[in-house]
C-alpha cells in the first residue's frame, strides 16, 4: 500500500479509538441472549402489573408505575452486574485483550472505551424498557409524564454507577466474587438510612458507631436514585413532584459522576500496571 493515510492526533483521535472499542462492546453486549432474556423478564413483570392493577380499586395506574419502575430497576441491576463484571474478565478469559492492547491505543482508552460501550448499552435498554412501560400506561388510560422520565433517569444513573463499581471489583478479583461484592454494596447502599440510624442510635458514641458512620460515608449511596413508592403527606405516590425536581436529578447526576469517576480512575490505575498472562 503506497498511500500513507493521515493519522489524526490528540484528544479527538483518542476519542475515536475509545468510540471504536465502545461500538464493539455495545454490539457484543446486545447480541448476547442473556441480556434479551433479562429484558423480557422485566417486560413480563410490567405485564403482570396490569393484572395486579385490575385487582386493586382505582389504583391501577399507581401500581403499574410502581411495579414498572421496580422492574426496570431490579432487572437493570442484574444486567448492570452481569455486564460490569464481565466487561474485563471476559476479555481476559477469552484472551481477546491480547490482540487489542498491542494496537495503537493507550490502555486507559481501552478501559474507558469498554465502559462507554456499556453506558451506551444501558441507555438503550433503559429507554427501551421505559418505552414499554409508557405503552402499558397509555393502554390503561394513564400518562407517563415528565416525573416518570425523571425517575427513569435516576434509575439509569444508579445502574451506570453500579456498573462502574462492578468493573472496579472485577479489575482485581474473579467475576463471581466481583458480582457478590458489587451486589452486596448495592443492597447496603440502598439501605444506608437504616444503617445510619443504627450508627447514630444504638451505637451512638461507641467506636463501632463511628467506624460504621465513616464506612457509610464512603459507600455509594444508591438510595438517592430510587424514588418510587415513597409515602408523602399521608398519601402514597409513585414519584412525588415536589421532591423529584430537575435540581434533584442534577445533584444525583453530579454524585454519580463523581463516585463513578473515582471508580473508573482506580480501575484505570490498576489496569495500567497489570500483566496479561
Amino acid at each position, binding site marked *: *500500500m503506497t498511500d500513507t*493515510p493521515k493519522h489524526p492526533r490528540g484528544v479527538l483521535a483518542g476519542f475515536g479509538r475509545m*468510540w*471504536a472499542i465502545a461500538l464493539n462492546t455495545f454490539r457484543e453486549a446486545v447480541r448476547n441472549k442473556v441480556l434479551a432474556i433479562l429484558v423480557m423478564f422485566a417486560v413480563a413483570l410490567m405485564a403482570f402489573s396490569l393484572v395486579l392493577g385490575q385487582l386493586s380499586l382505582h389504583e391501577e395506574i399507581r401500581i403499574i408505575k410502581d411495579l414498572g419502575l421496580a422492574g426496570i430497576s431490579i432487572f437493570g441491576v442484574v444486567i448492570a452486574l452481569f455486564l460490569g463484571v464481565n466487561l474485563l474478565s471476559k476479555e481476559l478469559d477469552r484472551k481477546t485483550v491480547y490482540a487489542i492492547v498491542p494496537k495503537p491505543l493507550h490502555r486507559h482508552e481501552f478501559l474507558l472505551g469498554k465502559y462507554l460501550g456499556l453506558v451506551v448499552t444501558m441507555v438503550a435498554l433503559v429507554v427501551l424498557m421505559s418505552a414499554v412501560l409508557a405503552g402499558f400506561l397509555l393502554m390503561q388510560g394513564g400518562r407517563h409524564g415528565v416525573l416518570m422520565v425523571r425517575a427513569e433517569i435516576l434509575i439509569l444513573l444508579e445502574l451506570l454507577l453500579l456498573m462502574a463499581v462492578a468493573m472496579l471489583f472485577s479489575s482485581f478479583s474473579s467475576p463471581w466474587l466481583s458480582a457478590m461484592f458489587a451486589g452486596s454494596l448495592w443492597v447496603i447502599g440502598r439501605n444506608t438510612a437504616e444503617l445510619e440510624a443504627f450508627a447514630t442510635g444504638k451505637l451512638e458514641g461507641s467506636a463501632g458507631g463511628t467506624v460504621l458512620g465513616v464506612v457509610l460515608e464512603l459507600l455509594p449511596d444508591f438510595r438517592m436514585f430510587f424514588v418510587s413508592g415513597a409515602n408523602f403527606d399521608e398519601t402514597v405516590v409513585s414519584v412525588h413532584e415536589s421532591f423529584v425536581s430537575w435540581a434533584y436529578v442534577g445533584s444525583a447526576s453530579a454524585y454519580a459522576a463523581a463516585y463513578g469517576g473515582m471508580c473508573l480512575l482506580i480501575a484505570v490505575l490498576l489496569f495500567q500496571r497489570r500483566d496479561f498472562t
Partner: protein
Amino acid sequence: MTAPVLEVDGLRKEFVRGFLRKRTVAVDGISFRVERGEVFGFLGPNGAGKTTTMKMLMGLIYPSSGKATILGAAVGDIEAKRRIGYLPENPYFYDYLSATEYLHMIGRIYGLDRAERHKRSSRLLERLGLAMAESRAMRSYSKGMLQRVGLAQALIGDPELVVLDEPMSGLDPIGRREVRDLIIELREQGKTVFFSTHILADANLLCDRVGIIVKGKLRDVGPLGELLSPKVLRIDVLWQGSEQLQAALREQFDGSEPGSEPGSEPTASPHSSSSEGQVFVAQAQAQLDRFVAAVIAGGGEISSVTPQRETLEQLFVRDSGSRPEEQRS
C-alpha cells in the same frame, strides 16, 4: 547502517504464582537484534519462553528487568505500535462479531477512514481465504479460521514489523503452506517478520536467521543452516542381498565402531530388516563408504542412502544438556 528494527537487551521475566508465591523464571536475560527486512525465527520447545518474550515486546506484560527497543522507540510507544502488527498465540476474538466488523474496529483504532478500512479488510479477507465467512459471527469459526482472522488483524495497519506467535499452529498442511507463502510475500514487500515456532520444519527455508531459546535462555542466534548442517547424526542405508552376505556384513560391521555420536545408541545393533529390505545405520562417512563398497563387492544392491540430520529436539538436548520440557498447551 540503519538501526535494528528490534533490539532486545537483557530481557527477563519472573512470574510469581499462587498462594506459596512460587517463582518461575520464564525468560532469563535474553539479548538479540532483528534487522530491517529479515525474517527472524524464534525457535524453542514448548515452555521455553517464546510467548512471554513476545508479550513483553507487545506491552502485554512488564519485564522484571532489561529493556527492548522497537522501531527506535521504547515498548508501548503509541507511534511505534502503529507500525507493528501482532498475532497472539491461539488467538480468539469476540463471539458475536463478524470478521468484517472486527477488522473495521481495528481499522478505526488505527485512525483509518471508512473507505480505507473497507478496502483493506476486504482485500485481507480475500487474501486469507475468509471471504465466504466474513459476515458470520466469529464464535462459529474453526481454529484455523481464527488463526486467519488473527493474521488479517495483524496486517490491517500495514505494519513494518510483523510479530507472529506460532502462526502455523492449529493449521492443516495446506494452511501451513499458505502461512509460509504469506511470510515470504511480506518479506518481498520489505517488511520485517519476527515469528515463533516449536517446529523446526516451519522455520527451515523461511528464516534468514533464527534465535534458539531453551528454558528462558537464548542458546544460539544465526542462520539455521549454520546451526544445524554440520550435525549429520547418522546415515541410513537400505540394501538387498543374499543371506550369506547379510551374515557376513553383520559380523564385519557390528556397531562397535569408534567415533560414534553420543546422540545415537551405540550399544544397539546397526543392522535391522524392514519390509523393503535390510537397513544399516552408519555413524560416519568413512564407515558408510566401506559398507557400501562391501555390499557392492558381495553382489548386493543399494536401494537408498539417507542422511539423518539432527532434529530440533536433539539440538535442544545438545544445547541444554537435558530434555526439553514436557509439551504443554
